[in-house]
């Protein structure tokens, strides 16, 4: 045989390394020690249960103690937590220590086998199935066959029907709010109407629409209707004629619901006239009809046209002209 490059030393299967026995397997003293360790761990779990019961029964729930780093801590809560932790944790630790130190540790090799069953087993299965089908007579008894098929098929209808409980369709709910022409602006949460003179330059107010008598204000309403009123110097505005006519003596009103994800936008910086959403830092310029100047919001906050009524209270001039809040599938974006 020639000694060429193909004839390098072949890789040898090194096999399994020699088995190394643990101390507890060879040294009776170590075995005793491991046994003690395991039982001490289990015993600590017993102490944990006693601690839990004792602190639940014996400690007043308003007792506080001072701990370094933690500060003033409720003693009962602390001990209940430690006790319950010890109860379960030490059972687990004991079991693992037991398995690691004392239970048999010889390595066992399980050879892989073919997934396919033996040919005879497969033939047996087919024969059994044929025999069962023949004895049930399902091929002959047409009536049973079809009635069973329809029964099984219709079972699936019920879960599909229950999907209805995922909620009624929103219909117009997402496009409309409770703001109508002439709706008075009520302070949130006081519920009192507001006059233009109530707001100084630099002041803000959170308002909700006045609902028809007998209508309960729901959380869904508040989630759509919330509006922020801001008063600036009129000369600070940089609005087109239509939007300027929607303001009243420097008071401008925006939907508080962010057009990005629907958070309440109300961080108003009165020096920069920026309105900031706390969730994703979308920043709107109040002087330019809430134009987006930073962040992920795609549209300005909808502006609510406001006016004063005969009694001098601030009212909405018209409903919102665009759907408020974030985008949704069927949103009508013809007005922006």
């Amino acid at each position, binding site marked *: 045989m020639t000694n060429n490059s193909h004839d390098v030393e072949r890789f040898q299967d090194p096999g399994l390394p020699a088995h190394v026995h*643990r*101390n*507890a397997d060879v040294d009776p003293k170590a075995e005793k020690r491991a046994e003690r360790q395991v039982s001490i761990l289990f015993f600590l779990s017993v102490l944990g249960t006693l601690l839990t019961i004792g602190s639940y029964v014996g400690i007043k729930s308003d007792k*506080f103690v001072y*701990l370094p*780093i*933690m*500060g*003033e*801590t*409720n003693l009962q*809560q*602390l001990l209940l937590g430690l006790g319950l932790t010890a109860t379960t944790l030490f059972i687990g630790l004991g079991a*693992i220590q037991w398995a*690691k*130190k004392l239970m048999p*540790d010889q390595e066992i090799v399980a050879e892989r086998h073919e997934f396919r069953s033996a040919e005879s087993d497969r033939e047996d299965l087919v024969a059994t199935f044929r025999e069962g089908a023949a004895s049930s007579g399902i091929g002959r008894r047409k009536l049973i066959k079809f009635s069973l098929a329809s029964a099984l098929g219709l079972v699936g209808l019920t879960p599909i029907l229950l999907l209805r409980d995922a909620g009624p369709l929103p219909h117009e709910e997402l496009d409309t709010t409770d703001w109508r022409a002439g709706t008075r602006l009520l*302070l*949130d*949460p*006081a519920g009192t109407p*507001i*006059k233009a*003179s*109530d*707001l*100084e330059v*630099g*002041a*803000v*107010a*959170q308002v909700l629409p006045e609902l028809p008598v007998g209508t309960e204000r729901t959380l869904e309403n508040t989630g759509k209707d919330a509006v922020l009123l*801001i008063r600036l110097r009129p000369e600070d505005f940089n609005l087109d004629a239509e939007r300027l006519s929607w303001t009243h003596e420097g008071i401008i009103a925006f939907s508080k619901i962010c057009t990005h994800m629907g958070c*309440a936008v*109300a*961080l*108003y*910086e*009165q*020096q*920069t006239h*920026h309105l*900031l959403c*706390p969730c994703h*830092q979308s*920043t709107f310029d109040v002087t330019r009809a809430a134009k987006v100047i*930073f962040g992920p919001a795609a549209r300005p906050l909808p502006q609510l046209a406001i006016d004063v009524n005969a009694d001098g209270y601030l009212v909405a001039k018209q409903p919102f002209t665009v759907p408020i809040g974030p985008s949704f599938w069927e949103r009508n974006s013809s007005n922006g």
Partner: protein
Amino acid sequence: MKLISRFRRHRLAGPVLVVAALFTVGTAFGVASALPSSQQVYASGTSTLVSQGKEIFLRGCSSCHGLHAEGGSIAPSLIGVGSAAVDFQVGTGRMPMADMSQQAMQKKPLYDPAETAALAAYVASLAPGPSAVTNESLTYERDGNSALGGQLFRTNCAMCHNFAGQGGALTNGKYAPSLMGVEPKYIYEAMVTGPQSMPKFTDATITPQEKLSIIKWLQEADHEKNLGGTSLGRVGPVTEGLLGWVLGLGLLIGAAVWLAMKAK
């Protein structure tokens, strides 16, 4: 002289001279900048509070706010801000500003309460504005309703100051400060005057009674004990999550390593 001429050309002469010069200039500057506050001794009885205030104003504030408090390019007009604004800004040490950073920071007040009162009287004499209040006049313990205060706080204040009054970030490095440990009168005056980025909350939109409720709620939030000891800053899931991930996952990884380790 001999000594000087001998060391004149020593290689350490330069550095020593620089250090000595810096020390001299620094000390002189420190003394000079400390002078205004040490000179503020007034002859009482002869001048009224307003004229005392005007004197302090001219010396300490007019370089930015103008000789007649009319404002300038770097500072707003103080006409009509009222004594409440002065008491808040000067009493909390925010004014005079240490530097022209994003926002005036709270620090040790430069003027003592008597001087602050004089300044407030002077600014209030320029035009009517919200009046300063005292902690004693705010009967929030008796007249406040902390449940209502919490509701008002969540509607009007929580978006900037955090739902537990811990403060939060605004844009461009500005921030809403924590409200923990703030004297009731400063909370009241801030609501009335709208300092810096903060909007005003007039008595018509949040009545004085409701303001007391907010203060009462804040006081209770401030003194509320944490069952679990540390509050983790009361800023919600961020610190809680961080601790959970770092400490909790760390323990789990430790447990996994121990589980897989062969016993000796």
